[in-house]
């Protein structure tokens, strides 16, 4: 080894392209450089693409971090976050940050990304006017959605639609403004754009097409309040998101005298005019093109790393790109030139009712463009044909029906993964081929999409190839993996689905875990953390008195009857019927807090009191001293029944909602279920108990009670659906109970009512509970029978099969040998 000091590499821009280059470089030459990174954002490198699912509430910021702080440390990289570089001194070879921090370089890598383009109109600087580019923007949008109602997104392209969808998912009224008459005009043809618009409208988005925005109007506090169009129309807007395009961020490079023209000009080796300075990512213009998608940027990163590592053999010669829209439930894919022209031919397939549209554009017997809507399974294959420029005259007749149909009619779909060549690309974002995935599955024994993601990076960026990865898993594992989603095994311990397991338990009167696992030939001796709790629930819900509850098959919260906290202590939430309490209860709670030195007391979002930070050894005593029933805040069971004050006090109250709530809670508590169950009763349609987002919501009206079911206020808010209208308290108990028993009998473990009803259909539930009087009474009777001898685990632990040994640690004393 030569003892020469390491060269210094400085990266400006701690984003997707720059850090990917470092990853590639470290693979090739881990010890060549001393690396310093400057990033203007205060975060480690994260997956910008997934800001859309974060906005839609499907993922968290923590989940989208690509390289955490440890990664930089473990690789000896000096990271300066929150520091923007303002000057590059190419003569002294130093970079200088806003706060004065300096770093010297031998090689410099620019990856400054791009800036969102803001319309230069009056009002563009008002509060509440945002772009959509980074975590800060996303947080600002989430914050605004909590406070305000009306959002306007300017720009009907990819980013604008993802922003609009996310804001809608967070409950805002969203209008998308677009200057043209078709959405995503650069990625879609008119027919596909129309279908897309229709399905977005069905999801509750509003569109203002052919509209030119002229001005943003301010309220008295300097916040935007409305958008005015060139035709004079005004619409309300407390949040405006501009998503009309991006501009390569070249200011810094320009100030350093590097040639730029719609991007920092780079050669095929990603070098700028100064050979010590490289540029990758959205800020770079290669052969006149600045790319705005990650797949080409990752290709650039590979080439750049190759040169930085002094291998000198990589050449970047541009990329063909394809587009997918990441709105859950909408499948859309486009690539190449799909608008065609005089010398092209088109093959189209349109099924407006089924919501499927496909168009393939062909020139000189070659596929040059594809636009798919509704069914995108063949997107990757078309994209491959397109990039390879392969002649398609021999497969022309079946081209439209996809790869699976090549020479093997009749096996639509399932065969696609099998038919794919090993070098065919599956994950466009990360450039992962089928062969790589198959190898990883075989060599490392992977059997879940998650594992494939961790090992190969496939499906870890935008996620749109997840379906294909599943197919590859299925075809590689054969019998070990169930092919059709309708029959997904509970976990890797079995090939049986939730339904099949339930049926087996019912039909064969299986009443213990060991018997069930033996009968169904479980692949593991006692299951895993996924299937054991599920089986235990199926056993006790199917055979209430006969089956034996196994505490070791329950997640810790249900085993300890308290919620575990991040420091290993527990929280205790006693039950307060219908949210009503009194002086002596409150006094007891206060005494318990003092006696056991409980650090935090909090009023929960479910109208009761949470004692946080209780030591496990103290739990039994805390329960005893509280002398209140278990609130089951830890269980897949009935949680709270929220109520409002109702007709007893409230000047608007039409019904005694508090009493109704207490009656429901007393009838249903101790009820275990596939997932947690929450109820609410409001005394009038003002709905102060938030009945509209509960598993069962009850709203008092003059003539009785309206019942709503399958609402959810959690990860994704779903408004409860109207179920029926009833007159008496007895009816409310019977109908609510019957609906919940149906869910208890048929729901998959960890499926909330919203997902259960989504799966079986509201009409089905209505048939079973509303139309079938006998059936309803039988359901209600079965529930009452199941609850008849269900114990309160806090006060009847033996009866509730609580293993009390867990509350006392085993004490041992180390006596030294000499003693």
């Amino acid at each position, binding site marked *: 080894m030569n003892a020469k000091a390491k060269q210094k590499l400085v990266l400006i821009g701690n984003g997707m392209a720059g850090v990917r280059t470092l990853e590639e470089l470290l693979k090739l030459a881990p010890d060549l450089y001393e690396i310093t990174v400057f990033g203007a954002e205060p975060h480690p490198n994260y997956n910008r693409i997934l800001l859309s699912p974060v906005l839609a509430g499907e993922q968290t910021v923590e989940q989208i971090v690509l390289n955490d702080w440890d990664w930089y440390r473990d690789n000896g990289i000096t990271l300066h976050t929150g520091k923007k570089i303002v000057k590059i001194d190419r003569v002294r070879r130093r970079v200088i940050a806003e706060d004065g921090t300096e770093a010297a370089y031998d090689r410099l890598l620019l990856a400054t990304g791009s800036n969102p383009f803001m319309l230069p109109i009056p009002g563009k600087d008002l509060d509440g006017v945002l772009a959509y580019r980074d975590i800060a923007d996303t947080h600002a949008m989430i914050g605004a959605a909590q406070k305000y109602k009306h959002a306007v997104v300017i720009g009907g392209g990819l980013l604008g639609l993802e922003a609009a969808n996310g804001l809608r998912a967070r409950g805002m009224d969203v209008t998308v403004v677009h200057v043209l008459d078709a959405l995503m005009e650069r990625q879609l043809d008119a027919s596909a754009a129309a279908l897309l618009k229709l399905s977005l409208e069905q999801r509750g988005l509003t569109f203002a097409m052919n509209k030119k925005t002229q001005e943003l109007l301010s309220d008295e506090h300097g916040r935007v309040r409305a958008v005015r169009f060139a035709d004079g129309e005004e619409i309300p807007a407390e949040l405006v998101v501009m998503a009309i395009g991006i501009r390569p961020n070249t200011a810094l490079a320009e100030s350093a005298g590097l040639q730029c023209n719609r991007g920092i000009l780079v050669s095929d080796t990603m070098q700028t005019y100064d050979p010590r300075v490289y540029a990758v990512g959205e800020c770079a213009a290669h052969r006149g093109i600045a790319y705005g998608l990650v797949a080409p940027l990752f290709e650039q990163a590979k080439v750049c790393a190759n040169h930085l590592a002094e291998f000198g053999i990589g050449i970047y010669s541009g990329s063909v790109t394809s587009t997918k829209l990441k709105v859950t439930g909408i499948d859309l894919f486009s690539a190449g030139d799909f608008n065609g022209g005089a010398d092209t031919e088109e093959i189209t397939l349109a099924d407006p009712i089924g919501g499927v549209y496909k168009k393939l554009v062909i020139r000189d017997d070659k596929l040059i463009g594809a636009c798919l809507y509704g069914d995108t399974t063949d997107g990757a294959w078309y994209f491959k044909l397109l990039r390879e420029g392969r002649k398609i005259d021999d497969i022309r007749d079946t081209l439209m029906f996809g790869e699976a149909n090549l020479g093997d009619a009749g096996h639509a779909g399932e065969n696609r993964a099998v038919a794919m060549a090993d070098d065919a690309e599956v994950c466009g974002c990360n450039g992962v081929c089928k062969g790589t995935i198959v190898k990883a599955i075989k060599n*490392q024994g992977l059997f879940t999409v998650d*594992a494939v993601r*961790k*090992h190969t990076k496939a499906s870890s960026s935008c996620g749109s190839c997840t379906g294909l990865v599943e197919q590859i898993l299925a075809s590689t594992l054969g019998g070990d993996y169930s092919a059709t989603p309708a029959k997904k095994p509970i976990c890797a311990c079995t090939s049986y689905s939730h339904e099949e397991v339930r049926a087996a338990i019912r039909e064969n009167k299986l009443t213990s875990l060991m018997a069930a696992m033996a009968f169904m030939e479980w692949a*593991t*001796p*006692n*299951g*895993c*953390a996924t299937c*054991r*709790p599920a089986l235990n629930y199926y056993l006790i819900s199917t055979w209430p008195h006969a089956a034996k509850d196994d*505490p*070791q*098959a329950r*997640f*810790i919260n249900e*085993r*300890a009857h308290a919620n*575990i906290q*991040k420091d*290993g202590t527990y929280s205790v939430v006693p039950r307060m019927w219908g949210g009503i309490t009194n002086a002596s209860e409150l006094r007891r709670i206060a005494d318990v807090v003092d006696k056991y030195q409980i650090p935090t007391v909090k009023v929960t979002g479910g109208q009761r009191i949470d004692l946080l930070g209780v030591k496990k050894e103290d739990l039994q005593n805390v329960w005893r001293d509280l002398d209140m029933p278990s609130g089951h805040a830890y269980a897949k069971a009935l949680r709270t029944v929220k109520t409002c004050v109702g007709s007893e006090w409230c000047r608007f109250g039409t019904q005694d909602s508090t009493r109704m709530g207490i009656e429901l809670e007393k009838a249903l508590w101790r009820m275990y279920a596939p997932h947690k169950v929450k109820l609410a009763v409001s005394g009038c349609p003002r709905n102060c108990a938030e009945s509209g987002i509960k598993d069962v919501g009850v709203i008092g009206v003059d003539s009785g009670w309206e019942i709503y079911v399958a609402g959810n206020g959690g990860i994704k808010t779903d408004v409860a659906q109207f179920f029926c209208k009833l007159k008496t308290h007895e009816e409310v108990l019977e109908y609510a109970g019957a609906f919940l028993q149906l869910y208890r009998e048929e729901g998959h473990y960890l499926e909330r009512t919203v997902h259960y009803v989504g799966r079986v259909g509201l009409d089905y539930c209505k048939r079973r509970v509303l139309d079938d009087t006998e059936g309803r009474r039988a359901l209600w009777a079965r529930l009452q029978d199941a609850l008849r001898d269900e114990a309160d685990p806090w006060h009847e632990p033996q009866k509730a099969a609580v*293993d009390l*040994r*867990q509350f006392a*640690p*085993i*004490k*041992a*004393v*180390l006596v030294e*040998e000499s003693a």
Partner: protein
Amino acid sequence: MIKRDWLYICRLDDIPVSGARVVRIEGRPDIALFRTLDDRVFALHDRCPHRGGPLSQGIVHGARVTCPLHAWVINLDSGRAVEPDVGAATCFRVRCENGEVFLHRADARGTTAVAERETCAVA
């Protein structure tokens, strides 16, 4: 010999089948003592290599435990996290004789060399 090197902890039946107990030794970090379905006994430092979750509170399946906080799966015989997660909880030698469970004193005292602890599965 048993007396000198091994410290009596409890009876096998004091640990739930497919479950765990916490062992507390004055001045030492908590130890999680596991019992598998087939009555094998393992002991690990009661701290998950991920973010320190109490492994004793997890679900025991086969010779593994799933951490209660973020569901990492830890091998009981080595303390190592199942791939692709990386990291390990220190393991302690245990033996079970005539239904009684003993911990190796040197391990419990924390004086065993790390190399000797690579795996603590005792036949």
